[in-house]
């Protein structure tokens, strides 16, 4: 095609194969990856490369219409269930799942937390009585009438 203003056509009429840009270096071919088939690969290598490509494509394709119907037989299901039960029963050690709830808590934590709160009067009463009990305990002391440590006479 070329530029409509280009008047330097020294090599005859332009054809479909005439380069548009006359003074450019040819584009270097992009080096092929090692796994891509080349002229020096054997037929088996080409076939294995092709199989790899086909396998990768098959793995990447999402096809929900073709699903292998693997309906298990009842006997197989019951056999597997028994195997799993025996294997699980044979598991040793303490299970790592932590019993994070207190043993007396059979309800959902959020239902317990959503219950009506204790009145401030009760809380104040509990606090005062607790402080009084602590003070009473601290004030307790032993008043002894006789020495507490007695020296036995040496024999």
């Amino acid at each position, binding site marked *: 095609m070329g530029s409509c203003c280009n008047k330097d056509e020294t090599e005859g009429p332009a054809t479909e194969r005439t380069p548009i840009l006359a003074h450019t270096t040819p584009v270097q071919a992009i080096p092929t990856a090692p796994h891509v088939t080349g002229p020096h690969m054997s037929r088996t290598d080409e076939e294995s490369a092709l199989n790899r490509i086909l396998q990768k494509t098959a793995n990447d394709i999402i096809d929900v219409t073709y699903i292998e119907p693997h309906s298990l037989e009842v006997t197989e*299901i019951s056999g*597997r269930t028994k195997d799993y039960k025996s294997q*699980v029963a044979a*598991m040793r050690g303490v299970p*790592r799942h932590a019993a994070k709830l207190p043993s007396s808590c059979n*309800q*959902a934590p959020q239902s317990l937390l959503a219950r009506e709160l204790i009145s401030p009067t009760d809380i104040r009463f509990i606090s005062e009585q607790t402080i009084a009990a602590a003070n009473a305990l601290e004030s307790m002391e032993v008043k002894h009438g006789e020495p507490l440590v007695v020296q036995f006479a040496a024999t």
Partner: protein
Amino acid sequence: MAEELQKYLKRLLPTVEGLLSIIISDRDGVQLVAAHDQAPPGTLRPPFLGTFAIATEQASKLGLGKNKSIISFYSGHQVIQFNHSPLVLTFVATREANTGLIYSLEEDLRDAVTDLQGAVTVL
């Protein structure tokens, strides 16, 4: 160990209102350990539980990495399933149950599922 695990699952059931069943199964839907309370019978069978393996395999091809979980809402129930290949963790609950709270139970069960993965040879 099996009894303790089942007791733990049974204790987890009432912690979320509307949670009907907790099932640990293999890829084909065969149960290893389960606890259920008035769950729809069809949700406890291998044909139902086994569909997740196919779904998660196809979902992993969407270019977002490996699929971890699928939540399915139905008219009356919801099903939350986790991929712990080769095991599957399934929760079935009513439609009104708290989905996020059920989803968070997976973290509580992760250790138990990991123990099962190592101890049980999945056929």
